[in-house]
């Protein structure tokens, strides 16, 4: 029994975060019974938040990163897993979202996926979770690529199993765009490897500053930066590289949409921040390429154009997908402004947006479970039949607009402060103006579901089952709670921002 004591397990926690879902995925492939597969996936998904929060808390207490050497090989030779304030925070967001939605999964997956594919569906879910956690925890540039592809391949399957045949096409288009993005990233990593001879993020950072003095190597480094930024922008759906996202989210099964909207793009954003800030360093990035300015312009374009697309959309899931593109714009805006308030706002919005958007998609998933459609014409008046579900939708929608008293307000507030700190007063105006557009699209669906006569399909619907309402209201509760007590989000995010901007390793 000695071997299993907490003292022996604790140092292994970073690797367990990836190994547990991988083994869980393996286990579910042997299970033909979909309930058993769901049970395994749920148990696995609920252990991960405990591990990631434990890691985050110990990093925040000591202020030192936790480094796990795989096979006990020292850093530049072996692959290390590294948990610092930033990665611990993003790990916790992904693990918590991954766990909270599991009670919702059972009925939703049973309704939308054929019997023989169900246990495989949970396999894919666990693989995707392992991949996303792996991207965030690894300290090795190439290992991040491998995890990126593990999560992406699982994601394509999760999307393709949607009932509508358009899901197949959406998954295909995502496969093409996602693979191009990942390949561009790996080209950039290859150029960095040729210049420095290392793949470890910390080691890369220390060798790059010496490498750029040589003009020939400097060109290679700047080219690598360009490839990596464009590749990851494709993955995180930065406008105008978001074309794969609306259809993928709209036609995927409800459970997959809720999970991916909260986590998949966030892991890509994390990787971008890690590479641009920890490896290249802000100063070097801004000096060589006008990445900051370009990303600010694209972010603002996303905030407006994607929001306007959302206003005219008549499929509720596609509407929320366009809104996701706009919200990613807010996150990248703060990262591009790159001051303390901007980074804090962006990182806080990673958690806030994950919580709010997952809640919104869970509400739509519950509607889809009862009505079988999320077209505005079919769900009109559904608020009278499913008041608890649609009330949760309305509260999360208020959060999305940035209403004071919700989590969405906090992150937008910090973004506005960041813009003022940098003297970009027009950006403050644009943040407020784009929020007003989100009032229009959330207002439009609210009008449809509450103030219209129930449609034929909606008239027969009844309130969603408890297993769907509990995760939904947990997330909605978090949206309101995090609007008042911001220690968990803003507190951690500002620690992470401080670390990134100081360039402290």
């Amino acid at each position, binding site marked *: 029994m000695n071997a299993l004591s907490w003292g022996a397990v604790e140092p292994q926690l970073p690797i367990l975060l990836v190994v547990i879902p991988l083994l869980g995925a393996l286990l579910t492939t042997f299970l033909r019974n979909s309930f058993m597969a769901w049970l395994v996936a749920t148990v696995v998904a609920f252990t991960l938040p405990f591990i990631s929060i434990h890691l985050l808390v110990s990093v925040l207490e000591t202020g030192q990163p936790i480094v796990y050497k795989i096979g006990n090989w020292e850093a530049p030779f072996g692959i290390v897993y590294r948990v610092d304030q930033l990665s611990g925070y993003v790990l916790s967001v992904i693990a918590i979202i991954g766990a909270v939605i599991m009670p919702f999964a059972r009925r939703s997956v049973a309704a939308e996926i054929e019997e023989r594919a169900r246990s495989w569906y949970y396999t894919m879910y666990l693989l995707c979770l392992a991949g996303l956690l792996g991207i965030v925890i690894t300290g090795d540039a*190439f290992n991040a*690529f*491998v995890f990126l*592809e593990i999560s992406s*391949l699982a994601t*394509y*399957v999760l999307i*393709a199993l949607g009932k509508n*045949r*358009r899901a*197949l*096409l*959406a*998954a*295909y288009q995502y*496969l*093409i765009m996602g*693979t*191009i993005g990942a*390949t561009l990233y*790996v*080209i950039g990593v*290859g150029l960095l*490897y*040729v210049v420095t*001879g290392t793949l470890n993020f910390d080691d890369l950072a220390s060798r790059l500053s010496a490498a750029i003095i040589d003009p020939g190597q400097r060109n290679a480094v700047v080219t690598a930066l360009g490839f990596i930024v464009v590749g990851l922008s494709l993955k995180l759906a930065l406008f105008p590289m978001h074309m794969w996202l609306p*259809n993928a989210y709209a036609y995927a099964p409800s459970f997959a949409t809720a999970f991916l909207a909260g986590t998949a793009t966030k892991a890509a954003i994390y990787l971008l921040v890690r590479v641009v800030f920890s490896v290249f360093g802000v100063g070097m990035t801004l000096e060589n390429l006008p990445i900051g300015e370009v990303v600010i312009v694209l972010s603002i374009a996303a905030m407006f154009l994607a929001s306007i697309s959302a206003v005219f959309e008549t499929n509720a899931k596609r509407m929320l997908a366009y809104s996701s593109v706009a919200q990613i714009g807010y996150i990248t805006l703060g990262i591009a402004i790159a001051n303390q308030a901007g980074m804090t706002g962006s990182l806080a919005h990673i958690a806030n947006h994950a919580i709010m958007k997952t809640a919104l998609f869970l509400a739509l998933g519950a509607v889809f479970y009862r009505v079988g459609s999320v077209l505005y014409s079919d769900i009109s008046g559904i608020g009278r039949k499913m008041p608890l579900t649609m009330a949760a939708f309305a509260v999360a929608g208020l959060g999305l607009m940035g209403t004071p008293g919700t989590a969405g307000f906090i992150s937008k507030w910090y973004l506005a402060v960041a813009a003022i700190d940098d003297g970009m007063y027009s950006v403050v105006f644009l943040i407020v103006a784009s929020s007003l557009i989100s009032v229009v699209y959330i207002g439009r669906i609210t009008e449809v579901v509450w103030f219209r006569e129930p449609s034929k399909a909606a008239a027969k619907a009844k309130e969603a089952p408890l297993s769907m309402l509990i995760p939904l209201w947990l997330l909605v509760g978090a949206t309101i709670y995090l609007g008042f007590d911001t220690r968990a989000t803003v507190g951690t995010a500002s620690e992470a921002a401080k670390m990134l901007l100081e360039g402290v390793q």
Partner: protein
Amino acid sequence: MELLKTFAAHYNYFITIFLMISGLFIVIARGNLIKKLVGLSLFQTSVYLLYLTPAKILGGTAPIYEEGYKLYSNPLPHVLMLTAIVVGVATLSLGLALVVRIKEAYGTVEEDEIFAKDPEAE
């Protein structure tokens, strides 16, 4: 002359870039879903060359820690590309599986015909 020399000295890089661009071009320009996957595969394959070219040291041996072995090739890029090949195979097979399902659902693998059947899918 100087230009020709540079070209000859770096000819494998030019091949890499040519493959990369043609792969990307096929993905964008072709409407046939299978041809798009061929282009994607070409694009991914070019990356293997990008990693392997600088990994080859002329006259280099395997990394042996012993008297008499001075120059060695680092095996790491080869190992990395082995992983990338696996990723590429997985992507291609999943892509082809999706095309099979698309053919079953739409009866065609031409992008414009699919969009004609499902105007909103664009």
